[in-house]
């Protein structure tokens, strides 16, 4: 029986169980025992999902200290001899996984989106080159298979519960970071763009009217997203960026307003049911993937669509 360690997603604890799908990809549904390491979550959410819940003792480490969490994981590996260690591809996860891989002298596959087994060998797939290619990575060496999992790339379906044992890790931690949080300057909205069924996304063609996307998104019960171009220009915030260097989204409806559709951007669209592209050029790459193309100016489109959706009786009076 393979032993898989999964680090809790400290930002969205309920998404942690999706990492089980990556373990299933490696070992099959019944081929592994799952150990989840909880840094700042209570065990209840994980009971019945994982075979072993390891709760890090309260106060032992700060939930934003990558060095201390790395040490905890290293020590647990020495105890349990994990065959694989799966870490959420969050910012914190990206600061922990390479440290742990370095300590364990094992390779690390980052931003993994798929896993298969061919001829008994684990093949790990990850996007590279701004999402234009997919790389197949083969783990080598005696160390555990280590990877960070791209958020939203795997989805673990609800299934029968498994017997869970709960233990507490209170091992001494000798390495801590000097990082001190002085303040949160721009807290984000509580709902993530990945949680919406409708996304109204703006690109370069919607730069001059980007604030107008919000009322449209509200009218459609959706959220606003953006391409990297608008983030790089400082018009949109990074947490709503879709693409290889942003988030992977799977809404039912994706309105791509003034988005060209670079490979980098398309890498962030996974299993989108319907796309409406609004672009001055019907030959933009995004148009080929769309159900409907509106040829024209994105800002003009927004204004006219809003008039249609929410007619204002006082307009022009």
């Amino acid at each position, binding site marked *: 029986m393979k032993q898989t360690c999964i680090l809790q997603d400290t930002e969205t604890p309920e998404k942690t169980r999706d990492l089980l799908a990556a373990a299933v990809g490696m070992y099959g549904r019944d081929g592994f025992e799952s150990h989840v390491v909880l840094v700042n979550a209570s065990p209840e959410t994980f009971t019945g999902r994982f075979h072993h819940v390891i709760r890090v003792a309260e106060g032992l480490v700060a939930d934003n200290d990558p060095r201390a969490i790395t040490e905890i994981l290293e020590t647990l590996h020495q105890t349990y001899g994990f065959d694989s260690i799966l870490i959420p591809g969050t910012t*914190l996860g990206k600061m922990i996984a390479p440290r742990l891989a370095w300590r364990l002298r094992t390779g*690390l596959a980052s931003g993994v989106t798929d896993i298969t087994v061919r001829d008994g060998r684990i093949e790990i797939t990850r996007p590279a080159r701004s999402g234009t290619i*997919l790389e*197949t990575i083969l783990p080598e060496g005696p160390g555990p298979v280590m990877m960070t999992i791209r958020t939203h790339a795997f989805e673990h379906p609800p299934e029968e519960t498994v017997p869970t044992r709960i233990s507490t890790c209170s091992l001494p931690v000798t390495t801590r970071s000097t990082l001190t949080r002085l303040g949160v300057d721009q807290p984000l909205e509580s709902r993530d763009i990945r949680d919406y069924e409708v996304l109204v996304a703006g690109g370069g063609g919607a730069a001059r009217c980007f604030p107008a996307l919000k009322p449209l998104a509200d009218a459609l019960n959706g959220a606003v997203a953006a391409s990297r171009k608008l983030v790089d220009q400082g018009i949109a915030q990074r947490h709503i960026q879709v693409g290889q260097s942003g988030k992977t989204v799977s809404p039912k409806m994706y309105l791509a307003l003034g988005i060209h559709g670079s490979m980098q951007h*398309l890498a962030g669209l996974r299993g989108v049911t319907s796309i409406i*592209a609004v672009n001055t050029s*019907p030959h933009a790459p995004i148009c080929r993937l769309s159900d*409907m193309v*509106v040829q*024209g100016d994105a800002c003009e489109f927004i204004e006219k669509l809003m008039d249609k959706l929410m007619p204002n009786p006082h307009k022009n009076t």
Partner: protein
Amino acid sequence: MPMKLICTVKFVPDPDSFTAGRNRLILNPDDACALGFALAVKSGDPGVTIEVVTLGPLSVRPHMEDLLRLAVDRGTLIWDSGLEGSDAFVTSRVLSRYIADRPCDCVLTGSHSLDGGSAQVPVQIAESLGLDQMLGVIRIDPDRFDPTRAVFQAVDETGVTTWKMAMPGVLSLTRESGYKLPYPALTDLRRDVSEDVNILTSRDLGFSADQVGRAGSLSRVAGSYPVTYGEKDPVVVGTDDDGITRVVDFLKKKGVCR
């Protein structure tokens, strides 16, 4: 005490020329921001020293020379044929061994590289050197950036947060920071710096052949293939009243609006 800064950089294929046979190389955008910040610090305090280090083929030498024309004090290029095929682990190992012998107050890096995007190297450099590190840095307070500590803003899934971290440490910037490389002075444009790039091999750093390149790597890229997407045959409409009506009808049909 003027700070000593080391910037690790990578030259990556220009994403706009990926389809060409030989890709044009550019300075990785996140790394350019890190160097841009370092040069801004130096412009306010000429005593600050900046060293740029890269691991890459000798073909990047002209790019390193361009950086030396931007008030960078020292440029080091680490390369030999044995390094070909090195993974992130080997890259981190080589760079950190070099940096370990060059005491500095802060290592500035990009957060992600355009070609790999794994963000492994800066974190592993920090781990190797026993330093703290932060990804996603978008602003460093110049008034609170000295050999003892740095105060900076970083972005993650929760928002923008202000942090304090002891120096020496590793700060990894993103393009959102907006720090830009300055243009070289006209006199520097003509300056011959061809002999100023410090070129080292893995052997100079004490590595054996089995510790670098494919032999020393802990993971192997078995293959790669272009991403393809399922293409559709879209309905094309305009922004006239008929077009907007058809969009609304489509949205209604999909249950997005009533």
